[in-house]
């Protein structure tokens, strides 16, 4: 890092940041009204010349200018000519798990020592102060799934985060929201010469290991259930008078059952085996997809699909599973046998078949480009409204937060973006981002470098 700004200029900037924060603090107390913009509500169409009212971090009114009452004490911001839309949701990122991806010490992506690591929780690594986060929200991304890397079949559990807040505590909206199960071949420990390879070095190994892990967890659950039953029995009968035939057997007196040893790894799998939480099933090609789905069915996992980038030949099958798909990234290179647009057209093909989709950057530094992926998919047949939904409401529904996020609706958290045009086009400049009603300073390490070197 070589920030060498003049002391004087830094001082000026600090003062202005302080002023801005004061403004934010004051603004919070008063309702904020965004008046005159084009509102893309996502849930109930577009409102030209609309009004949106934010109070106490929530959206309290949305509608046409003529129909919305503007509170007397409100701070009214004229956003005429602007487009207003819900904060965007990136359905898989490594935000907060990396700073400089080539510098290992700044990365907390994955534990490669073993494959079965469901007891890794990204919230334990999530770095709220990462410089990557302000860069990301600068483009209107307000929420994201943070997932571990994909080189293990079970690398850990995802969190759903908000990209602003006083601390990690505040930003981690849902901890352990879901668990990735990766089955793309990438997880094989098959690098190097044969004598250096480790189990599992084949897909057979991957599948066997996963199956064993789930069986172990089932056994583990059974041991605890047995224990709980025995304990209940014991509690019920420990004060009973001994039976006559036991009278002289003092040493056989009832002992409380001893609990099984706790196993964090197997314990972590239980909510998924019980269908209480979502498994994110990742596969690229149709063969892997079907193997992974087979495993999921075998253990009654509740799942969504991830990637399916090269499964074009089985899209009807995908649709028949009636589960959402985190698609792509659509920038995945086509296979040599595929047409140039085989992956680009995947969102359209899935949507056509009635599959609910969401987009993800699968990245940290490039998460800011999430909306352009959705835009690009429209050039290959995805209807525009579906594209916008796939980075807002669909994502909120998939991750179980649609009561709070994903659309401009009364009662939802005020994660709201004001931009000078189409959210899905890279030429559009995001002017202001609100997260939980807070006016986020539109600055980042990058804007500071820009200003420093362009003499602003």
């Amino acid at each position, binding site marked *: 890092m070589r920030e060498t700004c003049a002391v004087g200029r830094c001082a000026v900037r600090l003062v202005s940041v302080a002023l801005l924060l004061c403004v934010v603090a004051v603004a919070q107390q008063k309702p904020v009204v965004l008046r005159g913009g084009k509102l893309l509500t996502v849930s109930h169409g577009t409102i030209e010349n609309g009004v949106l009212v934010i109070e106490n971090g929530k959206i309290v009114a949305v509608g046409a200018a003529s129909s919305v009452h503007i509170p007397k004490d409100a701070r009214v911001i004229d956003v005429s000519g602007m487009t207003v839309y819900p904060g965007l949701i990136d359905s898989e990122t490594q935000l907060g798990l*990396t700073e400089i991806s*080539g510098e290992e010490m700044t990365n907390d992506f994955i534990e490669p020592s073993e494959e079965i690591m469901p007891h890794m929780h990204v919230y334990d690594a999530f770095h709220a102060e990462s410089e990557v986060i302000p860069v990301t929200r600068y483009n209107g991304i307000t929420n994201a799934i943070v997932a571990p890397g994909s080189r293990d079949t079970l690398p850990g559990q995802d969190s759903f985060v908000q990209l602003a807040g006083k601390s990690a505590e505040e930003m981690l909206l849902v901890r352990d929201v879901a668990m990735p199960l990766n089955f793309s071949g990438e997880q094989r420990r098959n690098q190097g010469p044969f004598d250096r390879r480790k189990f599992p070095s084949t897909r057979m190994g991957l599948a066997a290991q996963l199956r064993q892990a789930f069986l172990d967890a089932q056994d583990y659950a059974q041991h605890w259930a047995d224990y709980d039953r025995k304990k209940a029995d014991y509690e019920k009968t420990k004060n009973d008078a001994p039976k006559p035939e036991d009278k002289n057997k003092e040493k056989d007196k009832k002992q409380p059952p001893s609990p099984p040893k706790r196993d964090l790894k197997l314990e972590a799998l239980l909510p998924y085996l019980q269908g209480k939480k979502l498994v994110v099933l990742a596969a690229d090609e149709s063969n892997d997809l079907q193997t992974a789905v087979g495993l999921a069915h075998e253990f009654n996992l509740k799942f969504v699909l991830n990637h399916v980038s090269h499964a074009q030949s089985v899209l009807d099958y995908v649709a028949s599973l009636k589960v959402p798909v985190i698609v792509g990234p659509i920038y995945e290179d086509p*296979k040599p046998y595929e047409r140039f647009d085989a992956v680009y057209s995947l969102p359209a093909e899935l949507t056509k078949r009635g599959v609910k989709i969401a987009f993800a950057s699968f990245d940290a530094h490039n998460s800011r480009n999430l909306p352009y992926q959705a835009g690009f998919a*429209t*050039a290959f047949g995805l209807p525009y409204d579906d594209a916008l939904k796939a980075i807002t409401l669909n994502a909120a529904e998939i991750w179980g937060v649609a009561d709070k996020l994903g659309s401009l609706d009364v009662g939802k958290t005020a994660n709201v973006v004001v931009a000078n045009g189409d959210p899905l086009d890279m030429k559009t400049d995001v002017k202001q981002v609100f997260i939980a009603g807070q006016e986020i300073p539109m600055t980042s390490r990058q804007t500071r470098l820009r200003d420093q070197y362009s003499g602003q």
Partner: protein
Amino acid sequence: MAMSAIAVATLAMITIAVVAAAQAAPAAANEPAAHNEVLIKNAMVMTATHGNIANGSVYIKDGKIAAVGKDVSAPASATVIDAGGKYLTPGIIDSHSHIALDSDVNEATNPITPHMMMIDAFDYQDKEIYHGLAGGVTTSLLLHGSANMIGGQAVVIKHKYGANRDAMLFPGAPRSIKFASGENPKRVYGGKDQLPSTRMGNFEVQREALVQAQDYMREWDAYDAKVKSGDKDATAPKHDLKLEALADVLRGKLLVQIHCYRSDEMLTEIAMAKEFGYKLRAFHHALEAYKVADQLAAAGVGIATFSDWWGYKQEAWDAIPWNAVLAMRKGVHVAIKSDSEDFARRLNQEAAKTMRYGGATEEEALKMITLNAAWIIGVEDRVGSIDVGKDADLVIWDGYPLSSYGVPNRVFIDGDVYFDRSLPGFGMPHYKEGM
């Protein structure tokens, strides 16, 4: 494979990374028929040099642009293509690519390998060429990677997928040589416990090689002088491919393209070029160009950069998406390049980002992937704009090209259609799988 952060981190080392080859089934050349005359009419012609022409036409003869304008007359025999009001741009030019080289991107066994010829590794059947073509790319500069301080000599191709190898080489393109600096050579050789493992070592190795080349030139000059003066006993010095290539750098016969991230290293490279009397064509990546844009402009060095790629390694930490436009405003030739088989397919979108970050005009943005990129390669008088006399390398777009929505509808190279989105299969009239 998912584009995980790890995958991206690997991609970040892209110039030293192995480029995965998408091998096509063996395809014999299917040479296009002799050029017909073509008239593309009813297009929104984005010339890249003299604005847009609504309802414009381009008349192509013998593979060259013969006329451009609102009212263009063509003989009745010309094939007429009605663009239906769609946008027409020059073919996109990628000034930094490693596609179609299988794994042969880096001869990472010695930090100085100027005699490596990328043409010897060029795999003309690699589908990556097609993927770029379908993204509107018509010309690419295939460069050596950045493992070595002085890598090798580039090859310039046209994306005539389905043609034979030699038909894909850009005829008469100037020779370019790839230099590098910074983290990659440090890591590659430092990792082997060899020189260089620091930036001091990097530049020493480069300077040493240039000194040897000076000696080599001197020996040959002395010999040539003796021969000229009639000395029959003069003995010729030994031919050395490596030093011969470097001597050509010193003689100004090669365009020097330098992989360079940090601004201080750019200044060092400029100083070294001055010391040894050669000229630099462009810094590649050049993510800190905005810090020293005045000096780059003064030295006449261009940049081939990313629009917004950042944070993948320490020397990419100060990257800002305003870099391209800030440098351009100071008078630097700026191209947006791919350095990736992925970005090569959507350079139009990468260029469009410069309109937001820094406010490039439409024509400025377009130039960054056409005329300016052609300048980096040294073929700006041949391609890169829709002007009379230039090669008819053109793209008809579905949607507005400088947006999320632009997709090539048809791509012409030397006047022939090499890609047509409306066709089934791969959409390539000159290619059949398994031919």
